[in-house]
């Protein structure tokens, strides 16, 4: 995520487009980090993440358009709404065994999508929420693309710092203990449900915040933003970048947000190249791209 003027100098005439890709990269990187708290650190394959992203996005979009809430209040509401939804859904789904957890959370994601699609009076359904205002923070209007780039970068920094703090030291160790060996974690005095819920709801809250930024950036929000294809994108970023690794996820986010765009120069071969690259990574670096860097480091 280079500085905008460096990018602009390197690609004259393409500044707006490149900045747009960088904003998307920042948003996807933050979203993937929040997802990895659940998948990579407590080892629960939840498929509910698009729902939390969507709940945050719709909360912010509707509060801004219908209730004319200021951006910061809407963002806070989005974070809280998504976090609260995770607490509600988390208690029943974490009683399920591993595989049923994936199905249970997938069910929740689909129900959320269907509700948003069909509750036309409230969400406008397929008509989409339109003319969402660009954000304004303490009187400072974020209307230009570079300004939004900085806002995204700041949001990413917050997500990354939070991710680091949660996944290292004593909290991280407790998460990893639950992931590695649940009965033994209990013998160590850890309540697995509590730590799973912690990762799940904090991850969801961050996803809600990213959803709010996404809605305010695009100014239009449609139900198809929160379908299963978002889960697939996130899983590709996580598993090809490197589950459980900040660096790996950033690499994954840069590659899989920027790459499809860069490949537009060769429209015919675009998907062929993209697919071949996915295959190559899976074969050469099955633990994710991050492992390629780690292997060089001394053991």
């Amino acid at each position: 995520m280079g500085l905008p003027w460096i990018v602009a100098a390197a690609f004259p005439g393409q500044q707006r487009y490149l900045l747009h890709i960088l904003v998307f990269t920042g948003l996807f990187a933050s979203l993937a980090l929040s997802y990895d708290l659940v998948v990579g650190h407590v080892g629960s394959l939840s498929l509910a993440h698009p729902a939390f992203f969507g709940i945050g996005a719709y909360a912010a979009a509707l509060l801004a358009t219908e209730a004319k809430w200021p951006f910061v209040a809407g963002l806070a509401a989005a974070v809280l709404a998504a976090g609260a939804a995770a607490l509600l859904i988390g208690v029943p789904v974490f009683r399920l065994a591993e595989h049923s957890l994936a199905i249970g959370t997938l069910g929740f994601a689909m129900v959320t999508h269907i509700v948003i699609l069909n509750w036309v009076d409230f969400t406008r359904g397929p008509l989409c929420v339109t003319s969402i205002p660009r954000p304004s923070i303490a009187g400072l209007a974020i209307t230009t693309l570079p300004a939004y780039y900085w806002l995204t970068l700041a949001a990413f920094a917050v997500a990354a710092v939070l991710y680091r703090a949660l996944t290292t030291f004593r909290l991280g160790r407790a998460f990893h203990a639950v992931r590695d060996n649940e009965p033994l974690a209990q013998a160590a005095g850890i309540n697995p449900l509590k730590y799973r819920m912690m990762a799940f709801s904090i991850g969801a809250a961050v996803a809600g915040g990213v959803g709010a930024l996404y809605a305010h950036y695009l100014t239009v929000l449609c139900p198809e933003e929160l379908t299963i294809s978002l889960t697939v994108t996130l899983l590709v970023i996580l598993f090809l970048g490197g589950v459980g690794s900040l660096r790996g996820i950033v690499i994954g986010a840069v590659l899989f947000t920027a790459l499809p765009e860069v490949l537009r120069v060769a429209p015919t071969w675009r998907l062929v190249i993209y697919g071949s690259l996915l295959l190559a990574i899976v074969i050469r670096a099955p633990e994710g791209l991050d492992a390629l860097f780690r292997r060089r480091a001394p053991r």
Partner: protein
Amino acid sequence: MALLEIRALTKRFLGVTAVDAVSLAIERGELVSLIGPNGSGKTTLFNCITGYLPSDAGTIAFRGADVTGAPPHRMSRLGIGRTFQLVSVFPRLTVLENLLVFLQQHQEESFFGRLVRSPRLRRLETAAVERARSLLALVGLGEREGMPAGNLSYGQRKLLAFAAALMPDPELILLDEPAAAVNPTMINQMKDHIRMLHAQGKTILLVEHNMEVVMDISQRIVVLDHGQKIAEGTPEAIRRNPDVIEAYFGR
């Protein structure tokens, strides 16, 4: 007042009574062994005591307080440590972290303190690392502290699991077959460790199949057969008890 007092504990699995009205009291500082043929309910009893299995009837009291039905993490924090029959470590944590994680839950529960690494917590962490290193040195794993625990050999993992259980300094330690499937040198090492713990005043309940170990170190032996307590006494008395001989060898 006994440190651990079990009254008429019963556990059934689909009609099979795995633990049948077993009563057992363990005094502070005792070293008691639980023996019995395979399938006699020893591990089931262990799992009921430590909260991994809900019991169907009976009560468990620890330090005089009723703890029947308490979940495993609560039992751990109350001061009951345990090891597992099948060797159990956190494979992706380092050897050192495997020990640290066993102490931290007993110390601090503030989420924000942990998130921002409060100075108090950092001091506790430094002390915990020191304690972990001395335990690793004790079991001979000092050189391996930075290695993922999953890379250790079977015997080393067994020693690591044992050291981890000691990390929070539990008052009562339940050891599930510490001498199973390890070489004779390590069996002697384990025996020495258990004796040392006992000498330090720890209360120990041991499940073990190796009779040499059991007879050698136990003060008292409790024998289970088909879920029932059939005998209880000193190693000498158990050795001569006809019911015990019958349970092991048949009539």
